């Protein structure tokens, strides 16, 4: 019970703190939590051994689904757009999952990367979708009301925070469910799982769809928050960044991706501001430091304290 309660407390604190924060921080956290959703999905997949270098596929699909629904159908309700992004990605993940759940390790990683690059290729060549420039979205509405700039940004922040922490709670339940723990078991011994009467492919398929769904929701949120989408959302470096952050965060706890993306976005923003020509190096050195000193990711800082507290 401790994790759901802590997450609920964190959510309440973030919502209360929102109006008091400077607008750059509100935006930084909105972006961090939207991306954090993608990393959350990756956490669930990585626990079952599926390291996807192509989450950009679902991130891009979610964003474009939200963008096209806005520009072609005139849907501006933020909640509807986020739900749509999730549904489109979940449905695509379900179909592709029949193929993907049969692959493992480097084959899974490369195939997921290839699929995301197919979407990237299609987007880049579609003049109707703005090609490499992408297109802009008008500001979202909430329950039929449009708000001015600052209020609207705060509402998008609140929506992103609620969805991200709500998903973390749901996925905390998932990783402690039979399907979640069997996923971990599959990581080390697929044959034994089959010989206990359970379909390995079925569990991995479900896990894959979860990863696709959170990535799609994250993509829709980033489209709404940034007001602009382009094919880079589906590009392989975007997918690589998610894996990078997942490793940086650690996959031991559902709060880790949210913390990890917030730290990553902060490091990147400050590095970009103070050393615009060498910011990648700063990010890279931070990653090296984490691998050297915290091999289980940033979350191990907290995990260690919990354990020490438990022993005392």
């Amino acid at each position, binding site marked *: 019970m401790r994790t759901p309660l802590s997450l609920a407390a964190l959510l309440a604190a973030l919502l209360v703190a929102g109006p008091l924060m400077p607008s750059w921080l509100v935006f930084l956290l909105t972006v961090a939590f939207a991306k954090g959703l993608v990393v959350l999905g990756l956490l669930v997949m990585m626990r079952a051994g599926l390291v996807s270098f192509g989450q950009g596929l679902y991130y891009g699909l979610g964003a474009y689904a939200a963008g096209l629904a806005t520009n072609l159908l005139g849907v501006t309700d933020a909640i509807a757009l986020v739900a749509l992004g999730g549904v489109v990605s979940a449905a695509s993940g379900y179909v592709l999952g029949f193929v993907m759940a049969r692959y493992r390790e480097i084959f899974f990683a490369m195939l997921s990367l290839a699929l995301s690059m197919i979407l990237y290729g299609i987007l880049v060549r579609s003049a109707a979708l703005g090609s490499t420039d992408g297109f802009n979205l008008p500001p979202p509405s909430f329950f039929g009301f449009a708000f001015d700039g600052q209020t609207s940004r705060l509402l998008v922040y609140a929506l992103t925070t609620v969805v991200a922490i709500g998903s973390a709670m749901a996925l905390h339940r998932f990783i402690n469910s*039979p399907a979640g723990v069997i996923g971990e078991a599959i990581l080390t011994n697929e044959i034994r799982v089959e*010989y206990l009467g359970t379909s390995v492919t079925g569990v991995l398929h479900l896990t894959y769809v979860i990863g696709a769904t959170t990535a799609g929701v994250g993509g829709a949120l980033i489209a709404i928050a940034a007001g602009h989408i382009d094919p880079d959302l589906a590009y392989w470096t975007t997918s690589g960044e998610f894996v990078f952050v997942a490793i940086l965060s650690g996959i031991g706890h559902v709060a880790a991706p949210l913390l990890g993306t917030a730290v990553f976005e902060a490091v990147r923003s400050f590095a970009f501001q103070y050393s615009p020509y060498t910011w990648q190096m700063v990010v890279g050195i931070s990653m090296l430091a984490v691998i050297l000193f915290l091999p289980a990711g940033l979350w191990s800082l907290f995990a260690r304290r919990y354990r020490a507290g438990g022993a005392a």
Partner: protein
Amino acid sequence: MNAPLIAARGLCKRFGAVVAADNVTVEIAPGETVGIIGANGAGKTTFVNMVTGYLKPDEGVILFRGAEITRMPPREVTRLGIRRSFQVAQLFPNLSVRDNVLVALACTEQTRPTPTAILRTSARLAKANEILARIGVDGLADRPTPELSQGQRKLLDIALAMVGRSSVLLLDEPTSGISAQEKLPLMDLVMEAVAAESAAVLFVEHDMEVIERYAPRVIAFYEGRVIADGTPLAVLADSDVKRYVVGAELHRRAEGVRA
């Protein structure tokens, strides 16, 4: 004799030039205990692998209660109540000992594992703890499985197979790699649990003492063929068995002593 629980008829399996099963026909009655002997490479594990769906025979059929199961995948064979353990214990080394049992419980209870309920319910925990206590590893329940001894790992492997109700249990060398003084207690424990479920047991075994003690019926394999099938007394007295199985076994031990 009752209608057979398992009937394997004319099973053939080749791996390139190696004939691992050559017209193998075996029937197992409900509740029967059968020991399988044979030198290394005689086709014992291949037979177990075919019955449990891991290998598809090139020819022949396998019937379970009269229905064909020849090409079923392992998970479906398992759900029918044909469960197995492995020569090398097949555990989940990234999970705790208790979680290994909990996973087995969840897999057995649900055809499709639920994504929204909690695995570690008090009912499942109680059941898991009871199983761990019965095999004497309850003190190590929270440790990862690589910290168990070889014998404990074998026991846990068999316990995982026996978590669900089984009609037939196939044990692939349950006592291999286990110290001499641990063998009989292990077999006692297993046979007692099997008797409680009135399941049939098929166990592959190299130790003739274990065979004579626990198997009222023995099947001897040699080069993919069944060369003898009967009481231990009759089978072990068979001239072919003496030459190809028991002799090979003594040779194996002598090699072991020399090495």
